[in-house]
């Protein structure tokens, strides 16, 4: 028998390296709009041309190539498609809450293109969502950045090809309640963490284990060059992912509220050399804005949503403005299938509370979340060469009277207020009783087709 050495390529794989599937692109010429470029000011009476999914022209009197649709946007406002940095739409499960560390799971595996939340988001001008694992675990699953290509029935068609990998972390009350049984009344044996100290310990253990895992593999790589009987370490999908965080291949997006826990995570990350971090929610981010800016951390916050649990009592609507003025890359997110339909209003609140300029306010829902997701080279502003992700509004998007009229992703129009039939669902239950059908739909809210982990736990 011939001797076999173990090719490492068989063991190490990254799902992100999957071949990208064919994703539809389109062409359109939008004429005579007020163009809010975000990165280059506001351009009056300007045309924007998108060809095969990319912006190819911004200027006056652009002509449409043969067969390209022309839209007269006189009196209307064109802005880049809104980027929602925190969402749970288009998923068929959200929390794998059986373990405090589940880095190996990925939302890529549970993207649900049938979810009506995608169309609703388009109707609110949102073209990209960062659809995330829940906040049950200290280290949750990997998130997925999607484009809202409504109508496609293959989950891979929604992927934002080339977007960096990201992962969900969570601090504070959620992981201690779920795993440590703090306040949950659960009769299952408690696990770590049941305190904020425990959260830090879980993080440090996970990173330390991943470091050892990396060392084991490095040692094997050296050993196998001189020892034909070298034995590779056990494969561990969970530690592979955490090792990739340490390597800088994955951006951390951490559910957090309190200033002390934000500083704690900065300490932990610094110890393990992790630099890519955006704090999600960060209701007390304003207290540590200089520290966040100094670390290069982002903050993705609510405009004014708080007091839904103890750790979010100390909050202010000035949070986003204070963070911006301190130089923190800040975004406003929805975390909700309802809020994501009026993120432009959420951004406008920072003008009432904090006096941000139009461009600063709109940056909170465009280029800034794009930076936090590592996709700012592609989306978040209207520039030649960027993706044709655009929204046309009836009024200035920061006006309370504005209405999104048309939404484009890669030059393809997926929402048009003039062609918006009653029923846009991609699938309808063949079995539901009609008399209760509406109530069932309401009952499961934005998560139709979504089964919560709790529900799965409770099933017989």
């Amino acid at each position, binding site marked *: 028998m011939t001797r076999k050495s173990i090719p490492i390529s*068989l063991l190490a794989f990254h799902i992100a390296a999957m071949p990208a599937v064919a994703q539809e692109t389109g062409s359109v010429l939008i004429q005579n709009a007020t163009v809010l470029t975000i990165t280059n000011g506001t351009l009056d009476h300007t045309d924007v041309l998108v060809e095969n999914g990319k912006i190819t022209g911004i200027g006056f009197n652009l002509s449409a190539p043969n067969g390209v649709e022309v839209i007269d946007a006189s009196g209307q406002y064109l802005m880049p498609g809104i980027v929602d940095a925190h969402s749970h739409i288009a998923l068929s499960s959200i929390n*794998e809450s059986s373990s405090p560390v589940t880095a190996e799971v990925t939302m890529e595996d549970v993207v649900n293109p049938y979810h009506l939340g995608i169309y609703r988001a388009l109707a609110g001008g949102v073209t990209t969502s960062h659809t995330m694992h829940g906040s049950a675990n200290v280290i949750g699953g990997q998130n997925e950045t999607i484009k809202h290509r409504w109508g496609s029935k293959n989950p891979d068609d929604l992927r934002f090809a080339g977007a960096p990998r990201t992962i969900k972390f969570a601090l504070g009350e959620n992981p201690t309640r779920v795993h440590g049984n703090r306040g949950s009344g659960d009769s299952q044996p408690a696990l770590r963490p049941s305190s904020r100290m425990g959260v830090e310990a879980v993080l440090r253990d996970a990173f330390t284990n991943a470091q050892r895992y990396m060392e084991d593999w490095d040692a094997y790589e050296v050993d196998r060059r001189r020892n034909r009987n070298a034995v590779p370490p056990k494969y561990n999908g969970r530690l592979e992912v955490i090792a990739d965080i340490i390597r800088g291949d994955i951006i951390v997006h951490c559910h957090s509220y309190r200033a002390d826990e934000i500083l704690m995570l900065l300490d932990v990350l610094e110890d393990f050399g992790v630099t890519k971090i955006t704090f999600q929610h960060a209701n007390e981010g304003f207290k540590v804005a200089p520290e966040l800016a100094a670390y290069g951390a982002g903050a993705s916050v609510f405009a004014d949503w708080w007091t839904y649990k103890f750790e979010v009592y100390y909050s202010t609507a000035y949070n986003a403005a204070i963070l911006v003025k301190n130089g923190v890359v800040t975004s406003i997110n929805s975390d909700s299938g309802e809020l994501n339909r009026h993120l432009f209003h959420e951004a406008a609140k920072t003008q009432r509370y904090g006096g941000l300029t139009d461009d600063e306010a709109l940056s909170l829902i465009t280029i800034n979340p794009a930076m936090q997701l590592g996709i700012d080279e592609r989306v978040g502003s209207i520039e030649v060469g960027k993706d044709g992700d655009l929204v046309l509004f009836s009024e200035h998007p920061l006006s309370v009277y504005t209405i999104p009229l048309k939404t484009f992703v890669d030059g393809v129009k997926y929402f048009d207020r003039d062609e918006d039939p009653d029923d846009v669902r991609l699938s309808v239950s063949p079995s539901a009783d009609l008399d209760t059908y509406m109530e069932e739909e309401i009952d499961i809210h934005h998560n139709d087709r979504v089964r919560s982990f709790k529900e799965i736990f409770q099933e017989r």
Partner: protein
Amino acid sequence: MNLYSMRRRPESWPSTAVLVALFLASIPSSTALAQRDASDIPVVTKAVALEGVRIVQSPGRVIENGTVLIRNGLIEAVGENVDVPYDAERIAPDSMTVYAGFIDGLSSTGVPQPKEEEDLPPVPDRGNPPDDRAGIQPQRDVRSLLSADQKSIENLRKLGFGAAHVVPIGRMLPGSGAVVLLAGDEPRDMVLKGDASLFVQFQGARRMYPGTPMAMTAKFRQLFTEAKRRQQMVQLFESGTSGVPRPEFDEVHYAFFPVIDREKPVFFYVDDVLEIHRALKLQSILGFDLSLAGLHEGFDAVDALASSGAPLFVTLDLPKKPKWMSKLKRDSLETILAAYDDETRTATFRDVEAERRNLEARQVMSRDEFASVAAKLEAAGVSFGFTTRGAKTKDIRKNIREMIDRGLSEDAALAALTTHAAANLGLSESLGSVDVGKIANLIVADGPLFDANTKYQYVFVDGKKFFYEKSERERQTDDDSLAGTWTFTAFTPDGEQSGEVVFEKDGESYTGTITYPDLDVTMELTDVSLDEDHLSFSWEDPNSGTMTVEGSISGDEFEGIVIIGEEEMLVIGVKEDSPE
């Protein structure tokens, strides 16, 4: 070959024959007989000849009048001129057609339902539970779990199934499947092919890891990738080199070795379309031989399924109909479909009815999509089989008919139940058609295979004969071609007009009523006459006066004219139901 060791005894053997068998068997060795109880007595002959039958050897390959000879569980001869040997039991049924026995692509037929997990104590760490509690049991083998006396075996056999790919019952990784023949006194009599598959399903662990689909896909990647490493370590160790650490044995990872070597396919049960994509993606990342069964929502992934090249088994289960739909016949559903308006933009509070009608239409469309998975795969040129898993026994034939109504050809339906299923299970040499050398799994039917009124009178499994007598009701239906509920449709200048007609037998003659569903009025029929296949009847229409229908019945169908005064118009009829 030792005759006594065969233990073959058709269950429905007449008692006189048993006595004859007992007598004959005693001749060669009376001492051997004395040592055995009655169940060990062999049958007098293991040859059966089905004579004067129509034989559908496989879809499109038909012998109009021939003989099938079975011996020792195998088909010994098939053809128009077969010499029937002296020792064969001769069966010459009247007007019967022989088909190959059906093959179930995936189910847990013959596997007893395991005990509930309710009373087990909580695991200490639900994030890292013991494998068996988490439903990670790929090392289990269905052969050790089978029970030959399960009612599910007889239920499936009665429907014409002779073989089934059966898998253990469990959660994510319940174990290995086997192809079994649906007859035998003990599991070992039934097994045709062991270790036929590694069975996987997206069935999460309860209150522990892996609970969700994302954790199950992650767990599968973890197990497969680590199994690959362990297998290579085992190979290195077994290559005889010293200085190689002893590989750690564990049965969970070892169960993946034949899958990694592509000696054994992974059978994924996937019902919704997202599960289909998940399984295909795992296959494309990890690389293994994949078969997919279930595919309830396969209508939305036809291209992906076709291009995957994976052997497919479509469910014979269809969604439960909502109450409103189950009351309506097909023509009413067609009317609802025709009224669908996909451009409605009506505020709900202004016109709830319009929205309701559209929703009804969408439910019909959705229902039709579920029933059209097989037709769509056929149109895409995919060879698929069927799976009975999750399908109620009483619905299986009805559901196949609905799939045929939605565009599946009868040949493709038969192929899915026989030749294609055998090919997809890698058993074309032994199963799937009525050919010499194949296992004698046969159906003897008294009519077209998929007709509602066709009775499968004999089912042979592994050469064993099972006889199904007609029930009282089935005999009555046979005798009476008219009694029951019919829908008649007249083609008038004003369009199609339908009426529901109920005929009842009254002694030697018939009575009946006609109902106009649109108007909800019912009238008595007069002069109902049936002479051979010629039917005529009349009634008084409130507007048009006397109406008379005349024409001929052929099976469940009627064609003729309706006479109104001087005018004659074409009318067709379909029998919907026979009397209870």
